[in-house]
């Protein structure tokens, strides 16, 4: 009986979904970027006038800006007039069962230990609900329970386009307040054309009743090309948010330029974790995603705290510096990073910790692993301002090299404008020793697994910062990312 109901519910959902998609399909913006395209996007989203003006202003600034060239990454020039900025999600032919899904994809799911039912959802099998009614029953009901629970707590969690409609005051107050539209070339581009992303608001004194990662685990959402995320945690609130997925993500777009803004008011805490596994391209890096991201947190209030944890394994090029502005006194910023590059991947990533308030603390733990012919750069800034008496920073950058053709680079910038601060920087570079490999192999562990074990040991400190349910999967992902790097 319950099953019958579920099937009916699911059918209803599908009707709605397909109708919606068909409608969008008929309207698609032509290639290229100009003010009309931006007006079109804004109109499609039914946005208020102020939002359109904001976008246009960003676009005008972008026109005057130049693409940054200081990162240690090399790529062919991007023709921004040759890209689509608004296109309905492609009506892909969905596989009818797992039998029709690329076996290599399934193999990866298998290795990651993702349950079969979730595999169907991730692979976008047509009518996955029908085949596995209970799985959908679970996910629909679980998702609904989550939603109710969030509402009860007063937490707002919705697509940013919905937030612009429903909570214009909050959005106007905070959007662009951490990453202004003219902050940098890619942030300006994103501000002009973003079409999706998430909005989170945690009110005063509320501890978000669940890890928002748990929610995503059930409702796997498609990430867009120009994502915009805005998370606000009001006084004394707390939220943990996970972006991405260990499962390999294919993208129709080569260029991804996301902006993430976090705002922590007094006594608030935000934990933001990312597992990035975009398509890295073939062995030469062809066809891989360019990931140019601006992520910044504003620890606005006293005693606020923001932790960034990232596991970067995918993309052909990664350009990303999740940062913290430590404005409130006693505020704390943390950055825990694992960046793995193999084959022809290029990573230029790190963080900026800007100490403005008194007794502010920051901690940076970066673990870079390079294999193949890849280049992996840590680039970080620790800046202590004049009034930041008692500020403290600890930075540790460790690089691990696998093979003799890759590169690891550490570029720390330190600026201290007060003598009343303490800044520590430690850096190591090591290679996987032949002795370590032989020791493990002599105990019965095949070479690739031995490398994965050594690397997982190397990054352990950071893995432990991830939400529990992702720890084991991430460990396996690290093994998979390094396949073919030895021998």
């Amino acid at each position: 009986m319950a099953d019958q109901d579920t099937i009916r519910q699911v059918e209803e959902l599908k009707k709605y979904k397909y109708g919606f998609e068909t409608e969008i399909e008929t309207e698609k913006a032509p290639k290229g970027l100009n003010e009309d395209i931006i007006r079109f996007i804004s109109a499609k989203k039914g946005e208020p006038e102020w939002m359109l003006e904001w976008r246009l202003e960003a676009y005008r600034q972008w026109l005057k800006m130049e693409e940054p060239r200081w990162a240690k990454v090399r790529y062919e020039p991007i023709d921004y007039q040759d890209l689509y900025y608004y296109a309905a999600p492609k009506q892909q032919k969905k596989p009818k069962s797992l039998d029709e899904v690329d076996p290599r994809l399934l193999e990866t799911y298998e290795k990651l230990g993702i349950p079969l039912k979730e595999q169907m959802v991730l692979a976008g099998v047509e009518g996955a609900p029908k085949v596995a009614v209970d799985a959908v029953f679970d996910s629909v009901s679980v998702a609904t329970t989550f939603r109710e629970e969030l509402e009860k707590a007063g937490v707002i969690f919705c697509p940013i386009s919905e937030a612009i409609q429903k909570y214009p005051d909050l959005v106007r107050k905070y959007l662009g307040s951490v990453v202004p539209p003219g902050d940098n070339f890619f942030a300006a581009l994103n501000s002009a054309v973003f079409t999706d992303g998430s909005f989170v608001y945690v009110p005063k004194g509320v501890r978000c009743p669940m890890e928002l990662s748990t929610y995503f685990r059930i409702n796997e959402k498609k990430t867009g090309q120009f994502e915009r995320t805005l998370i606000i945690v009001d006084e004394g609130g707390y939220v943990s948010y996970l972006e991405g997925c260990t499962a390999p993500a294919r993208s129709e777009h080569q260029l991804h330029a996301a902006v993430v803004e976090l705002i922590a008011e007094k006594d608030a805490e935000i934990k933001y974790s990312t597992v990035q596994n975009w398509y890295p391209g073939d062995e030469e890096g062809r066809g891989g995603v360019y990931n140019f991201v601006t992520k910044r947190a504003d620890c606005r209030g006293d005693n606020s705290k923001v932790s960034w944890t990232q596991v970067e394994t995918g993309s052909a090029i990664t350009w990303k510096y999740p940062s913290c502005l430590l404005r409130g006194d006693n505020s704390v910023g943390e950055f825990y990073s694992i960046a793995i590059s193999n084959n022809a991947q290029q990573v230029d990533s790190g963080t900026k910790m800007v100490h403005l308030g008194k007794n502010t603390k920051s901690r940076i733990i970066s673990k870079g692993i390079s294999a193949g012919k890849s280049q992996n750069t840590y680039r970080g800034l620790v800046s202590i301002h004049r009034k930041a008496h008692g500020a403290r920073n600890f930075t540790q950058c460790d690089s691990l090299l696998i093979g003799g053709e890759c590169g690891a680079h550490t570029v720390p910038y330190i600026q201290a404008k007060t003598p009343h601060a303490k800044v520590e920087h430690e850096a190591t570079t090591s290679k996987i020793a032949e002795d370590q490999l032989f020791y493990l192999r002599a105990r019965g562990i095949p070479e690739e697994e031995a490398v994965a074990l050594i690397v997982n040991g190397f990054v352990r400190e950071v893995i432990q910062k991830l939400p529990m349910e992702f720890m084991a999967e991430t460990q396996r992902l690290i093994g998979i990312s390094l396949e073919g790097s030895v021998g």
Partner: protein
Amino acid sequence: MLLEVKDLRAVVRPEEDEGEAKEIIKGLSLSLDRGEVHAIMGPNGSGKSTLSHVLAGKPGYEVTDGEVLFDGENLLELEPEERAAKGLFLAMQYPVEIPGVPYMQFLKVALNSQRKLRGEDELSTPDFMRLVREKAQALGISMDMLKRPVNVGFSGGEKKRMEVLQMAVLEPKLCVLDEIDSGLDIDALKVVAEGVNALRGPRRGFLVITHYQRLLDYIEPDHVHIMANGRIIRSGGPELAHELEREGYAAFVEDAA
């Protein structure tokens, strides 16, 4: 026969094609059966450790002649991990540190990898924990020790005791102990030897490589071989070790030459 080494010759491959390959093992033969403990004694540079590395399949050595049969099978064509899965264990003179990898995890991955290579089912976590707890207790190893990263910050005695724990958990058919006594004081040596003796049995063989007779007071061998210049120059019973202790290596080496 558990292990048969016939006219083995092996060279150390020079790094990056520099210089000529140097022959270290120069025609060595040895037979060892289940239930037997053989000791190989020899001066520094006689090729004892090289023999253990060649048996375990360490990269950097090349066998130029002869053969090694393990349980009747050609050992030399197997990868190191396959040799381990077939039941060959090399207790190393210098156990290697693996930062960040808890000992427990390492043991579990090792045991289950071996089982997988042998086509057996992996051991579940509770079964594995039970097994390790029992074996660790017998060796006086605390569970806290097993939470620490592999060999990082361990004393010489602790490292060697953990090698014995690995043997107890992995249950190999042949244990090759490469100078397991090096760097141990007498108390640590006793603990390690007791652990080894507890593993002796009719189905398992031991090849004990040592420089000093002292170890053989605690692990009593059935056969003693003296090795010099890449081959075995004399074999005998336990009394040979005592003779060697009295007269020194020089006398034997001169005789052989």
